[in-house]
């Protein structure tokens, strides 16, 4: 029989194995993404073309650079959010059907660490196409942005908002049979109301208020404020930054708790696999 020897307590600490568990799960996500890189590349090309066509349509056959400067951040946010939702939801559905989700949860690592790893992979999977498109349009059309360190704060918050949304959709996948349709509807809402085609400040007032509840919309608004050179103080003063902080906190917490809750419920009901 296998002999098991216990090492000295605390020999490895707590952080190292936890980080390794997160890294392992994230690495798997990236390896799977690499295997379907053709789909990722096609997605980048299609999203870029769609964005360009709509911008030409809005500009009456011309590309209006001030509009592009205001909507390009929304494209980046949309791609991160949509990828997190689609890949998170599709990925976990595939794992449930294939039974690999059960094997993943035979790990001694806490489910929260595995969730963190999954989230890290989703972030990378969303950010890679977003960065590619941002560089392509940014370098290609050189929008008038006042790039400053202030922009990093709303950028990080927008990404967190997008990931919270993605995690929420992933969590719902374990509960809803028709999650594919749900994700597409929500992604369309993020696309149209998140300022991807028209900045949300140009929406009619009622729709503008409603749009601010949509994932990434507030983040894009604050990002545009900082890229216009007005700094975080202006965003704080007009109330968009505090609302963004609240939005991110609520959505991230909701996504995280919903994911862990649905996992626990799946274990109680035997829902980690399709069988």
């Amino acid at each position, binding site marked *: *029989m*296998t002999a098991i020897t*216990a090492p000295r307590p605390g020999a490895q600490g707590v952080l190292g*194995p936890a980080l390794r568990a997160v890294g392992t799960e994230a690495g798997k996500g990236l390896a799977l993404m690499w295997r379907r890189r053709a789909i990722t590349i096609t997605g980048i090309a299609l999203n870029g073309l769609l964005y360009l066509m709509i911008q030409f349509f809005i500009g009456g056959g011309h590309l209006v650079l001030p509009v592009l400067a205001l909507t390009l951040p929304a494209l980046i946010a949309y791609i991160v959010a949509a990828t997190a939702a689609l890949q998170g939801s599709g990925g976990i559905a595939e794992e449930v059907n294939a*039974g690999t989700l059960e*094997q993943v949860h035979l790990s001694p*690592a806490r489910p929260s660490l595995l969730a963190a790893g999954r989230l890290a992979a989703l972030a990378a999977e969303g950010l890679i196409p977003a960065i590619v498109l941002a560089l392509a349009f940014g370098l290609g059309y050189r929008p008038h942005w006042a790039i400053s360190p202030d922009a990093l704060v709303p950028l990080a918050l927008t990404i967190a908002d997008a990931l919270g949304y993605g995690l929420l959709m992933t969590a719902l996948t374990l509960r809803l049979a028709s999650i594919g349709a749900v994700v597409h509807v929500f992604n369309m809402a993020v696309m149209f109301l998140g300022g991807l085609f028209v900045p949300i400040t140009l929406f009619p007032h009622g729709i503008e208020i409603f749009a601010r509840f949509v994932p990434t919309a507030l983040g894009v608004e604050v990002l545009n404020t900082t890229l216009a050179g007005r700094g975080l103080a202006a965003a704080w003063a007009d109330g968009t930054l505090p609302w963004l902080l609240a939005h991110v906190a609520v959505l991230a917490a909701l996504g995280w708790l919903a994911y862990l809750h649905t996992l626990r419920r799946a274990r109680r009901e035997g829902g*980690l696999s*399709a*069988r």
Partner: protein
Amino acid sequence: MAYAINFNVMNPGRERSPVAPLADVAIGLTGVTKRYQRGKGLLTAVSEVTLSVPPGQVIGLLGPNGAGKTTTIKMICGLVLPTAGTITLNGYDVARQRAGAVRQIGAVLEGSRNVYWPLSAWQNLMYFGRLKGLRAVAIRPRAERLLTELGLWERRHESVGSFSRGMQQKVAIAAALITDPPVLLLDEPTIGLDVAAARTVKDWIARLAADEGKTVLLTTHQLGVAQELASRIAVIRDGKIIADLPTGELLSRYAEDRFEIRTRKIPNGLRPGVLPAGGRIEHGAEATRILLPGAGQADLYRVLDGLRAAGSQLISVSQARPGLEDIFLRLIRDGEEGPGAVRATAAERVA
């Protein structure tokens, strides 16, 4: 083979002690029940199952579809939470010491791919090894050995999706073994495999038990596989264990001498009283079969004398003993026969 496990680091604050509990019981289930909510009612999938498997034993858990085998295995893995009862793995309580408990097991689950088909065999083994807390340096030599022994080394960098079903199953088994766990839970490990692949898997299971002393809990519908591999058989029906005996004991307890006589037509018919109780005659186009279950030598000679007297031409006389399949079908058909009738003592089971 020895390997080091750090017991607390992956789940701090949850484990009772960093020292591995030593146990006489590798897999222990006490009063385990699982009820699922189905609509407004409850469906009892597993009811009051108590099972104690000593280290190094191969136990076959048999039952018809929906009997509760898979639910039981998933509860042992901690993938499904029991409604009542306790489960231990080498002394670790699965509910309260999950991290320690899952380190004791490797599992191949039925109806699942078990591994990532888009990834290569090598990537899968490295991933599952790391996921279970091992470092890459410890995983590599073991992965190399497993893939070599399973004949997959040359194709280790190809995606598992491109493999045959048998090769995919071998990768799943290798992934379950990557941490060298002392307990293996195999839910239908040979299902869907061709004869050669099934033979490889069977040989592997037999070797793991014999040479490495692994405790194996095996479910299968292929009763020949269970009879070949398991030293103990538990039969589950409607969520309850209805038989639990060492394989030899189960076979001998239900064994009966069964003679089969094949003849040409019996022109004058058999005289009344020649056929013993339970005997029956089946007339076929080619031959007539006379089945004598539970017949002794005297009964056999009496029937043979009767056949000679009736002018029948004998083709063959053979003796058959019921296999596990016959016994299983009888148990499933007859249902619970009382715990005393089909349960062995702890000493018998260990033996």
